[in-house]
């Protein structure tokens, strides 16, 4: 049984990789199975976690009847299937959009604007003897300056109300350079992780499955 599973897994692994050459029947087969199986998987998971665990058990055991509001919104969603009153299905949609907008405003504001600005407010260097920052290396002082200036010019780049011209344009330029360094760094860093994934897959093919690797 275990061996059968390994062969099956190998079959699907190679099928997906065959897409690199070009689209073919093997890949199509893998893709169709993947779509079917995974759609089923997520429905089953949603059903047991949300409907059974979250909704049914909490209503029957803890009597959280307010959850019925959620269920009725869900039912309204299904009214799309009855065209004459299909417009009601917009209500749950607008509920979702409103809730998302309301929740995200505060979340993003607190953790992205406030916290990030606060973290940027740091002394760049210190001229006071004995201060830990005084004995900081020139590199870290340059680093501090780069962080503050980079954040500032990066914001200049995103500014919409002014054309990027003159001194302002110059700052925007430095801003986009900083952002480009960020992108380059993330890219370089990700290459490593992605290669590990492939190594893991190949180890499965040549090691676990074919047993060619010691």
């Amino acid at each position: 049984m275990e061996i059968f599973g390994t062969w099956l897994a190998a079959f699907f692994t190679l099928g997906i990789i065959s897409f690199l050459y070009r689209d073919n029947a093997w890949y199509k087969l893998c893709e169709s199975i993947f779509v079917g199986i995974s759609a089923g998987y997520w429905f089953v998971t949603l059903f047991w976690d949300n409907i059974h665990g979250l909704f049914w058990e909490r209503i029957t055991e803890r009597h959280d009847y307010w959850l019925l509001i959620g269920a009725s919104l869900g039912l309204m969603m299904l009214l799309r299937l009855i065209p004459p009153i299909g417009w009601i299905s917009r209500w749950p949609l607008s509920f979702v959009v409103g809730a998302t907008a309301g929740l995200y405003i505060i979340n993003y504001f607190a953790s992205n604007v406030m916290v990030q600005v606060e973290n940027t407010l740091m002394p760049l260097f210190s001229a006071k003897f004995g201060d830990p920052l005084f004995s900081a290396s020139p590199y870290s002082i340059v680093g501090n300056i780069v962080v503050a200036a980079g954040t500032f010019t990066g914001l200049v780049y995103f500014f919409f109300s002014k054309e990027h011209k003159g001194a302002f344009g110059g700052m925007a330029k430095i801003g986009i350079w900083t952002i480009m360094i960020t992108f380059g760094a993330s890219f370089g860093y990700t290459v490593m992780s992605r290669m590990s994934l492939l190594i893991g897959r190949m180890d499965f093919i040549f090691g676990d499955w074919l047993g060619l690797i010691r």
Partner: protein
Amino acid sequence: MKRKIPVIITSLVGTVLILSVFFPPAERMGEDFSIFFDIIAVFAFFLGGGNLVRIHGNKIYKKARDWGFSAVTLAGFFLMLAAGLFKIANPGGIAADVTAQGSLFQMLYDWIFNPLGASMYALLAFYVASASYRAFRAKNKEATILLIAAFIILLGRTPLGVYATAWIPEQFSLMQIPNLAIWIMTAPNLAGQRAIMIGIALGVISMSLRLILGVERTYLGTDNE
């Protein structure tokens, strides 16, 4: 009327949620609303799953091109549904957890779902390489900067980078590639991340306000009154 009510719902729900943060008795509202969302999502799945069945069913019925693959998709879908909802071959029976070892559901997950997902994920290794080859051209200043940063980070994580600059004396240790890589990550990278994050947050605030104030209604299709 049909158009007014949804806009009112959005505004009302959004406003209430923003205010709830500042009043401890209403603090949990955000959490409750996300539970509602989870429940709505399951109901919505009947539409999504229905759509899946209808599209593939149609293809089979009409014997359209590649209809055989549609049949495979539907078979996989129903097999997984049956295995999960009726907990087929689950050693613990219907009361046990759906992912119990030995159940058909878990076997399908381990043997089919998981290798397929992992392989799709592993394709990234190839695409990362081809994207680097194709797109990493020093065609202008921005691209050159991106290229150099990526190059330093890449080298910094290989023995090549370690040896290439190991001769640089300790006073200038920053110029050693592995240290330079770390410096890039902690200084310019941090600055760029912050600028992007602050920008994103302001964008989100402004967009959410447009939604709550009813200025943006595209999602309701009320664009053309």
